[in-house]
């Protein structure tokens, strides 16, 4: 979505700065899933319709079963037909995770995924992220202010005012 002011971003060995808009769109569709602090679900759609969205945008057909699979995985299948405003914050973030994983991306980018949640709900979300890495082999890259969240990661890069302060060795 963005370009580095200096240096380069390599994704699966591919330099993102070398890609045009069409190729970047394809990259997002196939390899990246996003999770946001404020969930960013579409309020006009139901939970399952939100999850279907990345597949539909990629032009895929018969997407309902895969969307329901992912919702089941985050234990939200029972509420699949609820509209977004009928869900709690934690439930919304679980739907957002299902959406981020529905197209089996290689990389999950999570921006403060627990920032808007209480600690118990945040814990559940973090566990889901950990499980997704384990079960689907997705690389999860998470930005967080929380030391507890960071503690779950294999590798932590500590930033201060936009500069890398230190890199902790992988666990």
């Amino acid at each position: 979505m963005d370009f580095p002011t200096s240096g380069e971003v390599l994704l699966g060995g591919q330099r993102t700065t070398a890609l045009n808009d069409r190729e970047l769109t394809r990259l997002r569709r196939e390899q990246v899933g996003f999770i946001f602090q404020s969930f960013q679900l579409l309020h006009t759609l139901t939970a399952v319709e939100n999850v279907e969205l990345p597949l539909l945008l990629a032009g895929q057909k018969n997407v309902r079963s895969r969307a329901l699979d992912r919702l089941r995985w985050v234990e939200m299948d029972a509420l699949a037909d609820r509209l977004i405003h009928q869900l709690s914050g934690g439930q919304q973030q679980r739907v957002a995770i299902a959406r981020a994983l529905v197209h089996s991306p290689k990389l999950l980018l999570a921006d403060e995924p627990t920032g808007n949640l209480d600690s118990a709900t945040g814990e559940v979300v973090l566990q889901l992220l950990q499980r997704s890495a384990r079960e689907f082999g997705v690389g999860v890259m998470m930005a967080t202010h929380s030391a507890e969240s960071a503690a779950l990661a294999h590798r932590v890069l500590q930033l201060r005012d936009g500069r890398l302060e230190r890199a902790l060795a992988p666990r």
Partner: protein
Amino acid sequence: MSALLLFWRLLVRPLAQEPLRTSLTVLSVALGVAVVVAIDLAGDAAAGSFHSSLESLTGKGDLLITQTAGLDEHLLGRLVELPYPLEFQPRIEAFATVNGKGEALPFIGLDLIGNGQARIGSFGNFERPIWAGAALNWHNGQNVRLLINDVLTDFTVAGVLPGEENNVIVTDIGLAQTITKRLGHLDAIDVKLPSSGSVDSWRRLLEKQLPRGVRVEPQGSRTDENRKMLRAFRWNLRVLSYIALVVGAFLIYNTIAISVVRRRNEIGVVRALGGARESILSGFLAEALFFGFCGSVLGLLLGRALATGAVKLVGNTVQALYVSSRPAAVHFSLESIAAGVGMGLLVSVIAALAPAVEAARVPPLEAMARGREEFSRRQGAGKRAWMALLLFGVAALFTRLPPIQGQPVFAYLAVLFLVIGTAAVIPEILGASVRASRRMLMRVAGVEAFLAAQSIEAALGRMSVLTAALATAVAMTASVAIMVGSFRETVGVWMASSLKADFYLRPAGSAAADQHPTMNPAIADDIEKLPGVAAVDRFRAYAISYDGMPATLAGGESSRVRDAGATRFLPGENGRAILDKLPTGDYVVVSEPFANKHKISPGDELQLPIAGGVRTFRVLGIYYDYSTERGFIVLDRKTLLKYLPDPAESNLAVYLQPGADASRVREEVDRVINGRGILVFSNSTLRKAALATFDRTFRITWALEAVAILVAVMGVAGALLAMILDRRREFALLRFLGAAAEQVRKLILCEAGLIGIIANLVGLALGTVLSLILIFVINKQSFGWTIQFHWPAPLLLAVLSGVLLSTILAGLYPARMALAMNPIETLHEE
């Protein structure tokens, strides 16, 4: 002062942040006001100047003496001998065209030796001197060839008459009488009264001295009659000109409603900080007034510019259907300025009332807590459905009510109620349509169309207003298209049944409804003797005044018309029997518009001032006629000649023998008329020419409809721009989720397209109902024409697809704007 500051800070300044949308709203008001102003100015100008140039020349007389088909010259001698201090100025009135082409110019014969010479100057030594109005741009000594009736004659310009608008040609009355073959006749006598005594008392005195059938009227009554005749036409035109403003009203409503939604938070804060309900209400009304004021001022300027073009279009129609008039200068009166600005402000405030009241009712806490949300009308769906039903019922009732002073006021109200009623249920129609179609849309047009349907449903309030505006414009256009299409078809069918002759002849020059130049009667006689010619129908027409309204008195050959079956009478009347009886006495048939205008039925008696007396004629029947709205009173030619023994004809219809070689006969006819200014039309060219005239008269209507649609489409563009801003988070998110740029564009165009399709369908349905009111109530009450309903499918298809295409195109810029936003920044902002 503080209120003004707050108004500036809270309401005006935010408008500057969306200059394009603000301009679109102002422009939509401006266009609405401009059209109203332009039509008002153009109507005034087009109806403004019957004979006004003549008045400026002779000095305004006080009374005018006239008679059907002209006065006997001896009358002047008797009048002059009366022991009263009155001045009499006789005149001959005709029309001339330069070389038989172009505009018909008033050709006036005045007694230049008696009164007017001082104004006109020396005669010079020319054989046939004329004095030409300055507007003609002729110079002294110039030779001009003029066609008067069917004869071309050379004249020399002896002088130029002042006045920029003056296009009159004046000559001495003796010469005019010779040229127009009216020796011994006068068309009118102007009377100048002394300052003592009232106009009315002099009028009564003169009437006693004059034979029956001679009319004495105050000057300007002809202009008044013409204005009266034009009233219905101008009324309808004016109502049409309001359509764009009504469509504009929806957009003001939408703009203010969006403004209320966006500032819900601010409203809460302002109320919490001590702002009163009334301040909120007046704030939003002031915002609407701001739009109304800017739009109206711009509209005045735009209207003044459009008026020049409109005068030409309106003038065309007036000329073709009513009376020859030269448009006066467009005159910007204080009244028209006040009317334009007042209209713009009024419509803006009315349109803004509902959302402004809604804003004022918002409880402050709720406003702050819930933040931005969709503007929703307080009334529920049920209440609105009932209101619509009530409006439809009242509208149905109103279509049954008679006109007020000849104007179909109730029918116009019925149209307005139907429009408002339909707008009230648009949210239900729109919601149900997108709900019903979204799965299908997904299959047919992909996820973008599905998302578009979802977003429309989510923003039903504002999308409904937009759909209503567009549907109103479509409905009005469709109804007028159906009406005009039906009218055209009816005229076509009428022509096919009534134009049975093979050739038609008339003097060259422009064909205005009140001009009846004549031909030498020898021509008809010569043509009748040609081999291959079966019969010639001789038709003579006179412009007259009946019961204070202009009309046409005419004579035709009943037997020829009967044999050709060329006249269709109203249902229930026996055409053959009527035409058999017509020549046998003082009988007439009248055209449908005449019968409607004067409430005449078969069997009624008409009093016609004719041949030195008032004669009574019995009406035998009413026939269909679509050639002029003035209305015809038709006698048999023999009866007409008995009273008005001038055998010259205004029109000839030539019937060929079966099997005759039309092109050979045509050559012979051309030989007979050789050198005269006479036009010969074959049957098909006459029909084509008539339809061309028909189409020309409705150009102004199309122009008005086009403006209404333009306003609606601008509204769609403006509302989509607002929508893009309000939903930028959604578009950014879609980009994160893998939507390509084209997909976001497609989504926005799909929304515009869906609105366009639904507005088209609703508009077509409503337009069909409105067209029935137009055809069977408004037209009937205003003009008295019977029009057969006809669906002009190709025209409607063109209009609807044009609207749809422009609606989709209106989404292009907003889509570009959506794509220009940076998704990361957008999501961060939120």
